[in-house]
């Protein structure tokens, strides 16, 4: 190459309207938008509205009674407790797994990535059954647990284990692509500036990924509170003791207490709505960051 002067950058590309560039006619656009809107209305919004209408069907007093009844309160408390343990646990392990995958090269890395997705690909019922098989009275570790007076299945530990298992991928899956796209140079820069590994983590890595972390935690929490299948298997459905909100709702519904069932359901639906709003706000404000983590 010779040292010729570069042509000036002023030769801008001719501008075209974006929709034209994609080559779709307005009719196609309209049809696509209409179809997806109709679908959303029919399959998502309508059921959600029904939940609230049914919940309110017997009036405010009935609604209040349904959600303040002792069994309902116990279910709410248990759900919050399970989420309060499972979610922080998955945050820590999820960050560790994402860190390992994004920052190190090691044998079996692809296997690890596939394993992280395993809970998503396995039916939740099977996830629950695995724990019954392991820790149940007839299970491999059952006799030993009984001998030592430890209860896992049909008790809080089993609920937590099943929830952790089912919700594990959320945090890790959000973080891995984001961390990978960021690379390691920020961390290396901090290290060369003399920062300790802890300082690097808390001042550089964590702030860099905080929004995708928050996003993952949000989804993880929504699922932890709403999980039914896996939890149903390990719970034993002892009222007031091992019933979480989704299980409580099912029992109420099966006992023809529709209004009460929908009243409790409306709480979960409310949680879903709050999650949705937060998620939208996040995407709105930090869309570029999250999109960066999604692109891969």
């Amino acid at each position, binding site marked *: 190459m010779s040292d010729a002067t570069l042509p000036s950058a002023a030769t801008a590309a001719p501008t075209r309207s974006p929709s034209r560039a994609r080559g779709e006619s307005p009719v196609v656009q309209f049809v696509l938008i209409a179809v997806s809107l109709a679908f959303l209305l029919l399959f998502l919004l309508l059921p959600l509205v029904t939940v609230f209408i049914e919940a309110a069907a017997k009036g405010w007093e009935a609604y209040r009674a349904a959600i303040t009844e002792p069994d309902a309160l116990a279910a709410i408390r248990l759900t919050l407790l399970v989420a309060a343990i499972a979610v922080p646990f998955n945050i820590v392990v999820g960050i560790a797994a994402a860190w390992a995958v994004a920052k190190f090269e090691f044998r079996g890395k692809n296997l690890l990535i596939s394993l992280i997705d395993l809970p998503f690909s396995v039916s939740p019922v099977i996830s629950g059954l695995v724990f019954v098989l392991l820790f149940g009275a007839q299970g491999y570790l059952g006799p030993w647990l009984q001998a030592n007076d430890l209860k896992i299945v049909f008790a809080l530990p089993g609920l937590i284990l099943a929830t952790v298992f089912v919700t594990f991928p959320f945090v890790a899956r959000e973080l891995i692509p984001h961390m990978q796209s960021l690379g390691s*140079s920020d961390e290396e820069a901090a290290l060369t*500036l003399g920062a300790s590994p802890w300082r690097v983590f808390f001042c550089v890595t964590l702030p860099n990924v905080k929004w995708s972390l928050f996003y993952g935690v949000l989804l993880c929490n929504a699922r932890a509170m709403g999980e039914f299948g896996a939890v149903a298997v390990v719970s034993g459905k002892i009222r007031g003791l091992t019933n979480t909100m989704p299980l409580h709702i099912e029992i109420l519904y099966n006992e023809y207490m529709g209004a009460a069932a929908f009243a409790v359901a409306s709480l979960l639906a409310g949680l879903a709505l709050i999650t949705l709003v937060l998620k939208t706000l996040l995407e709105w404000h930090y869309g570029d960051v999250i999109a960066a983590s999604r692109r891969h």
Partner: protein
Amino acid sequence: MSVAVTIETIEKRFDNFPALRGVSLDIQPGELVALLGPSGSGKTTLLRLIAGLEEADRGRVLFGETDTRNLSLRDRRIGFVFQQYALFKTMNVAENIGFGLKSRPRHERPSNDEIRKRVRDLLELVQLPGLEKRYPSQLSGGQRQRVALARALAIEPRVLLLDEPFGALDAKVRKDLRAWLRELHGRTGHTTVFVTHDQEEALELADRVAILNEGRIEQVGSADDVYDHPATPFICEFLGEVNKLPVKVVGSQAFFGDRPVLGGLSQNQGGPASLYVRPQHLRIVDETPLALPGTVEHLRRNGPIRRAEVAVEGLKKRLEVDLASQVAPAIGERIRLRITHGNLFAAA
């Protein structure tokens, strides 16, 4: 503050790829050295090894008398400017620059007032006063580069290491920053090593240039040394433009085919060789015993220089010839070329 850096027979492999194969280099205190080479030559690996971001399989790096293998990254005290700057996006400029000072153990850490003052001084030094509160995303490429440099300088490094410092900038900014960096180096006097694949940048900026190829240093020297006296065929072809002629050396003359093209050779190794001639060392002449006949096939203008492409019988590639006079030959004209200077390497 600045120290000598001694690199002793470094070897480094990545899986099965040998990135560095026995590299040694002595860098004087306060010297500005460029590591130049094509991509994959190992120059960035060498820089990261000096920094301590990679570990050598064999060999060692000394800072002064200290063997750096025993030093933690913190104790090495190097200032590293990354190719994409690696500024902390979630911190503003002042926090970025102060990060290194705030990272020191409590008893060595300056007070917040001192850090603030130091940040202000550094921003003056890199000619960005008053930008403390800006975030990296609000800065231009050139400004980010300077902030990255200020951040690296804040820890009073013993060695300053820059990875492709101007790689991400456009041509105009690059030229300005080059001159500015040269001047800054003159003022602060840090031992500085920078990596580049841009030969112009290396030759213009560095006291000495180390040219790497396939994990080895092919030549180390001043810009004049490496340009005028290339040590290997690779350097001839890598630095600037060059025409390659297969010749045969007999006595003190080099023959292209059966025609003598260059005389007065002192090397007395006869036999087949490659003669490397730069475009500016070919001159159109009327008649001389040592001349190469050819036909002008193409003319073009290359900034200030007019260039002719001359086809020579028996040579696949056209010769590139710089035209010294304003009177250019016409396309299709038969001319004779004299080689005023060339580098001869025995054919392998």
